[in-house]
């Protein structure tokens, strides 16, 4: 069936800000789909509130709206743009939910807009628990039996019907408290009685327990003619019980025979057919490890994180094909872009093994529980490919950039046998390291399996790695042994460590014996057909397939690795745009990256993609083969910057700002010298190595001071100290991570924080715009609300900032991008941080000013001058509207994480509010971040002493808006004195009803809780904030944010939002 000619203009809905569980994969899918639609001559209207995405570029869609993802906005957009169709299956759950609401309220029908890619009936059948259950029953597909009960007797009756063990989940309790697994009637009676009491509605779900079963996923595609294929299946190494996003996943499945594989494949095809899905779909199964029994856990009728992984694991572009199917094409009419000669109606065959590891944020949230459950916690993931499982696992481990490079990286050697067995019961991100230690201690596979339920096959593979460690430690390092170690991807530094040799010796021995990396293709077909746009992965001991095509000039672009807090999708945006810009300049482009969720690892972004870890050794292997003419490191965040030195050693020229100058910006003493030369003040500070030195420095500077390690990302380890005790504690935390770099102690200035990104060509600079932060200094720039153009600073300050930027860029010999953070105290401007590279704000400022900063910087790197590129140097004229970037957090997903804001970044994503007036922009930004007030008009204020005065003013304004204000003693007194009517609530440690009951009562809209500076020893604040977040209450921890929010709420005139097409800027 060819393309449906009545589809001419399509609205694509994106997934909004990056949060845990909904990340870069939707930018990848959306970008691919938009390009696929445009290829077909479709006019694409794009809506996504996330400015850091590539899909919100005007090159990707014809009309781009970075607006809040709400029903009202979509309705208005449909009225404005009049698309004939909406494609909602690419924006994750957020996009799908919006489309459902529009369909259900009849809006789409009324305006003759159709849903393509899915129908609301399909969505309902897949998403509604009851409908899903009955649909599965109708086609004979098993789901885990479950029943909601209101009495212990009903629970016993049901459990004896379905068999023990059973899972008990009380309805509406915090974080699943009161639930559990019952293995027999006695346990059931106890847990169920308790659960019924705890549940606010007196209901408990009794469910067949499938924990410990194998978790298997299938990615399926179907077209409107009913043709179905499976793209890939995947096996979670962690059995059912751990969210697939937090599991170690391998593709294809390794422990399923053809009988099981085909049984589940046929089931997946039956399901996608019955749901009448046109496009992609993900089906998750629990498979009994000792029988053919299985349950369907979940069906996602849309592209997903798993589909992004499946795409990258196989080379099959699911989103691209899904978009074509939505237009009416059938699978056998869509070419397979990788082979160029076969069609999309085939199933990819892998001749390699893929391992995905989650990137968990426990290095950021030290207080958080590391336990992995059915609630996803990972912010990102890495993927590695090899022709053996051990190698893929080893490569994935070192791709994480979490100071891990082997199965020895977490040290459990001190644990005894019994302690290890108990540790094995803990399901967290270090479990494979515990298994490795268990194997070292001689604990049998069966014992490990009995506790973890991890398949013996995987345990054996871990054992093979452990045996190699042992062999390297004990045996003489022969060429044979080295060859075998490299086959299973032991990095040179680990081999060196185990053999007591130096890394150089190992490398020399490798080269002398011809043990070098070879590259194989991901070609979708196991070499059955020739491939036209494949990508590559390294293996040892095989023939190389990657040809060094040597006619054009070649540039190596280093990607930014896994998405983590502090280094997000923004850097992928920069890497991709830089790659495109180099292509336009006639370069052959090569990307190295390991993140399966991103656009940069799509098969057709660079001329060549190497799916590899970003370590010096792995990069060097690519460099030896490709011999690039230069490498760019300034777009790939800290990951790429960290490789600068290694690249120079390999003899690869660094394009743009030189390595020495990158260093100069990071090295305190060099940097101080430069500032002095430039006549630019900075907050006074010292470089120290010990706690004693730090305390001395702090006292000299006067508290409060900022303490941080040098070379950090996202303010990691940065803290504000108010006394000696804080300093001691912080230095202790910093030193926990083997720090090779010194520690910085700076005077903490409380002023206006200002940020600029600039392009410098060695002489001239171009500043697209100045951004100011709503929150005063002390809160990480990534967690601050950022306003463009800066509205509260004087022309004089602006001029100073421009001048300082120029001086700094020139002194640091910046060629390309520079990001500078300033503090303005009155008209005095101080520099607090300089990053001679692209930053988090680059995509945002590019979009709202219409200046393509990354392509511009890339051309400057290639020797062009700003003037000859058609720009007037200096600070560019301000736009005639406001653009406000709002941070978005995922605190509710990370149990135990402290949500109070400070110098260490905690947000996972961002959204944009753009409008003609400041107030409307602010309103849109809050709306986009999901803060929709009021519901009950009840709020709690509890602030530290320094904030009481400002809190009074804020409270008055909320009161005027009709809010009922609750406060704890100190705050309440301050408010009462200022004639604000306030209700006193008891503190946490006091008897019920206290502040906690208030929050748990689900009647509170907002909590303003500013924690005292320094180490917050008050556990109360922490408990209050956590409980509020987990109850779904908005919590603000900075007084400035609260002020901005009340300002936004006061503007009741903001009703009909004016939507702005970014493509017109």
């Amino acid at each position, binding site marked *: 069936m060819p393309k449906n000619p009545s589809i001419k203009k399509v609205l694509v809905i994106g997934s909004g800000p990056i949060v845990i569980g909904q990340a870069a994969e939707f930018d990848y899918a959306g970008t691919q789909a938009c390009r696929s639609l445009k290829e077909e001559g479709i006019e694409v209207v794009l809506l996504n509130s996330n400015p850091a995405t590539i899909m919100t570029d005007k090159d990707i869609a014809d009309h781009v709206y970075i607006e809040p993802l709400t029903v009202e906005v979509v309705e208005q957009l449909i009225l404005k743009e009049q698309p004939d169709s909406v494609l909602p299956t690419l924006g994750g759950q957020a996009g799908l939910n919006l489309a459902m609401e529009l369909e259900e309220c009849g809006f789409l029908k009324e305006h003759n807009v159709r849903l393509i890619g899915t129908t609301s009936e399909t969505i309902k059948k897949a998403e509604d628990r009851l409908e899903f259950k009955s649909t599965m029953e109708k086609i004979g597909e098993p789901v885990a039996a479950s029943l909601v009960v209101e009495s212990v007797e009903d629970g016993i009756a049901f459990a004896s019907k379905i068999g023990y063990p059973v899972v008990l989940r009380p309805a509406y309790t915090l974080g699943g408290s009161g639930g559990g697994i019952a293995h027999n009637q006695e346990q059931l009676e106890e847990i169920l009685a308790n659960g019924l009491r705890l549940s606010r509605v007196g209901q408990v779900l009794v469910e067949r327990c499938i924990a410990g079963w194998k978790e298997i996923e299938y990615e399926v595609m179907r077209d409107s003619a009913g043709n179905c294929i499976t793209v890939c299946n995947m096996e979670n190494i962690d059995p059912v019980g751990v969210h697939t996003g937090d599991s170690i996943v391998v593709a294809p499945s390794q422990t399923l*025979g053809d009988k099981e594989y085909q049984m589940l494949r046929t089931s997946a095809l039956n399901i996608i057919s019955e749901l009448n899905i046109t496009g992609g779909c993900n089906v998750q199964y629990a498979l009994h490890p000792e029988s053919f029994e299985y349950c369907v856990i979940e069906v996602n009728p849309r592209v997903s994180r798993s589909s992004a992984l499946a795409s990258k694991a196989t080379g099959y572009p699911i989103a691209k094909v899904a978009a074509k199917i939505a237009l009416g094409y059938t699978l056998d009419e869509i070419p397979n872009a990788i082979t160029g000669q076969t069609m999309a109606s085939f199933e990819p065959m892998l001749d390699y093994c893929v391992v995905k590891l989650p990137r968990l944020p426990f290095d950021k949230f030290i207080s958080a529980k590391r336990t992995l459950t059915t609630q996803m916690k990972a912010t990102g993931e890495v993927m590695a490919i090899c022709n053996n499982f051990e190698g893929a696992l080893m490569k994935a481990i070192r791709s994480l950039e979490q100071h891990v490079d082997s199965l020895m990286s977490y040290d459990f050697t001190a644990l005894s046998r019994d302690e290890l067995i108990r540790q094995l019961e803990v399901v967290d991100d270090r479990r494979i390291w515990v298994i490795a230690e268990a194997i070292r201690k001689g604990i049998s596979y069966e014992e490990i399996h009995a506790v973890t339920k991890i398949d013996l096959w995987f345990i054996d593979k871990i054992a093979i790695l452990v045996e190699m460690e042992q062999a390297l430690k004990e045996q003489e390092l022969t060429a044979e042994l080295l060859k075998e170690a490299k086959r299973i991807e032991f990095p040179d530094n680990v081999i060196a460590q185990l053999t007591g040799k130096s890394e150089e010796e190992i490398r020399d021995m490798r080269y002398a014996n011809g043990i070098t990396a070879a590259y194989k293709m991901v070609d979708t077909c196991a070499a059955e057909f020739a491939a036209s746009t494949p990508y590559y992965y390294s293996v040892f001991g095989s023939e190389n397939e990657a040809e060094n095509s040597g006619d054009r000039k070649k540039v190596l672009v280093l990607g930014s690795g896994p998405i983590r807090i502090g280094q997000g999708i923004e850097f992928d945006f920069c890497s991709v745009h830089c790659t495109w810009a180099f292509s336009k300049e006639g370069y052959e482009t090569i990307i190295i990256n390991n993140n399966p969720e991103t656009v940069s690892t799509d098969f057709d972004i660079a001329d060549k993609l190497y799916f590899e870890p970003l370590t010096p050794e792995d990069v060097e292997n690519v460099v030896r083969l490709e011999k690039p003419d230069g490498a760019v490191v300034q777009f790939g965040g800290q990951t790429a910057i960290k490789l600068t030195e290694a690249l120079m050693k390999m003899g690869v020229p660094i394009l743009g700002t030189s390595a020495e100058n990158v260093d100069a910006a990071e090295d305190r003493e060099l940097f101080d010298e430069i500032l002095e030369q430039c006549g630019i003040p900075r907050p006074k500070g010292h470089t120290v190595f010990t706690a004693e030195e730090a305390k001395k420095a702090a006292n000299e500077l006067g508290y409060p001071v900022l303490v941080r390690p040098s070379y950090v990302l996202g303010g990691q380890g940065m803290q504000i100290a108010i006394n000696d005790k804080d300093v001691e504690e912080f230095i202790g935390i910093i030193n926990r991570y083997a720090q090779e770099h010194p520690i910085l102690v700076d005077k903490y200035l409380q002023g206006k924080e200002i940020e600029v990104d600039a392009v410098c060509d060695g002489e001239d600079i171009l500043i697209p715009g100045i951004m100011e932060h709503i929150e005063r200094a002390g809160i990480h720039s990534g967690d601050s609300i950022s306003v463009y153009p800066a509205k509260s600073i004087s022309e004089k300050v602006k001029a100073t900032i421009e001048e300082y930027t120029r001086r700094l860029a020139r002194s640091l010999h910046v060629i390309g991008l520079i990001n500078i953070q300033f503090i303005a105290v009155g008209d005095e401007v101080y520099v607090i941080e300089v990053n001679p590279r692209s930053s988090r704000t680059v995509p945002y400022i590019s979009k709202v000013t219409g200046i393509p900063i990354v392509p511009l910087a890339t051309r400057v790197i290639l020797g062009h001058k700003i003037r000859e590129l058609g720009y007037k140097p200096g600070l560019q004229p301000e736009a005639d509207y406001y653009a406000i970037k709002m941070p978005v957090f995922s605190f509710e997903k990370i149990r135990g994480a402290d949500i109070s804001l400070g110098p260490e970044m905690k947000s996972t994503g961002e959204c944009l509010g753009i409008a003609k007036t400041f107030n409307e922009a602010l309103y849109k930004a809050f709306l986009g971040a999901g803060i929709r007030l009021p519901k009950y008009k009840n709020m709690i204020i509890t602030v530290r002493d320094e904030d009481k005065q400002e809190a009074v003013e804020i409270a008055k304004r909320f009161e005027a808006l009709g809010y009922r204000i609750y406060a704890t003693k100190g705050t309440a007194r301050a408010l009462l004195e200022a004639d604000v009517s306030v209700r006193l609530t008891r503190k946490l440690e006091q008897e019920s009803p206290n502040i906690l009951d208030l929050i748990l009562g689900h009647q509170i809209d907002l909590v303003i809780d500013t924690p005292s500076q320094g180490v917050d020893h008050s556990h109360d604040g922490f408990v209050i904030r956590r409980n509020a977040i987990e109850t779904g209450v908005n919590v603000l921890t900075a007084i400035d944010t609260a002020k901005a929010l009340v300002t936004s709420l006061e503007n009741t005139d903001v009703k009909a939002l004016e939507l702005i097409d970014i493509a017109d800027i």
Partner: protein
Amino acid sequence: MKAFLILEDGHVFTGTSIGAQREVISEIVFNTSMTGYLEVLTDPSYAGQAVTMTYPLIGNYGICYEDMESERPWPDGYIVRELSRIPSNFRSQDTIQNFLEKYGIPGIAGIDTRALTKILRESGTMNGMITTKEYDSLDEVIPRLKAYRTGKVVEKVTCREKTVLKNDGFKVALLDLGAKRNIARSLYERGCEVTVYPAGTKAEEIIAANPDGIMLSNGPGDPKDCGPIIDEIRKLYETDIPIFAICLGHQLMALATGADTYKLKYGHRGGNHPVRDLETGKVYISSQNHGYAVDTRSLDPAVAVPAFENVNDRTNEGLRYTGKNIFTVQFHPEACPGPQDSSYLFDRFIRTMEVKKNA
């Protein structure tokens, strides 16, 4: 122990010996299935060939004897990247290492199977030798490799005696040209009483048994080496008994009715091949294992017309015989290994028998 794979074009791969340590010369082919190694090993169509698995990790779930598609493994040799050190599956009864040894199948592991596959893709299927002997010169070996012919392998793999699977549905005569067990099982599960005949059975004997339908199975080798069988099949064609044929059976029926077959460059072996039903336009993912195909240009529309085609290379995948209750497919609706998407063809065969019976 070291082992070598020597190809007739002079390529030599060095790896480790697996299975039996005897030297063998055979035709080297590759299979892209990611699961189902046991089903591949026990598919009689591989008689006379050594099969390379493109998926690098083989033996992960061990050996479960009830999954065998015939009484024994048939390939002359087995070529893999890596055999799993331990098998892991609740049904596993044995390791693949033991299995290969038990049946005397020589093999080689630890070679770059992808590089080998590319050679076969570029140069076409060729002969090769698996050996543990180190030859100083290939001059003596290569002529031997070139001289190798698969020969009349159907005789080798077919059953010796007629057997009957008792049931109370339609009576189906299954001509065993090297049948996979799941063909008979698929019919039996649909109620058919299946009588399995050795390949050399005379048409008269089958017709005399008065079956409701005849099933021609898959099998190994060049269809043109099956002269006498083709003659018998011609006689079956002349009757009005419904016939369903798979793979070699499909090729033999084409040859028996005047069409021609040819050797594909490197064949179709795997579980991911898309075939289009030319009547409905629908595409099915199929299990395939064949090195020869029916030449559609040789078809007389008065005799047979294409019913299925391969979406990738447009080669013929099935025929409908004009004015006859005969349809034949090149791919494997019995799966095992591979997708079960086209198992509906067995239902179609049952319906054909029904219609015929009720007429």
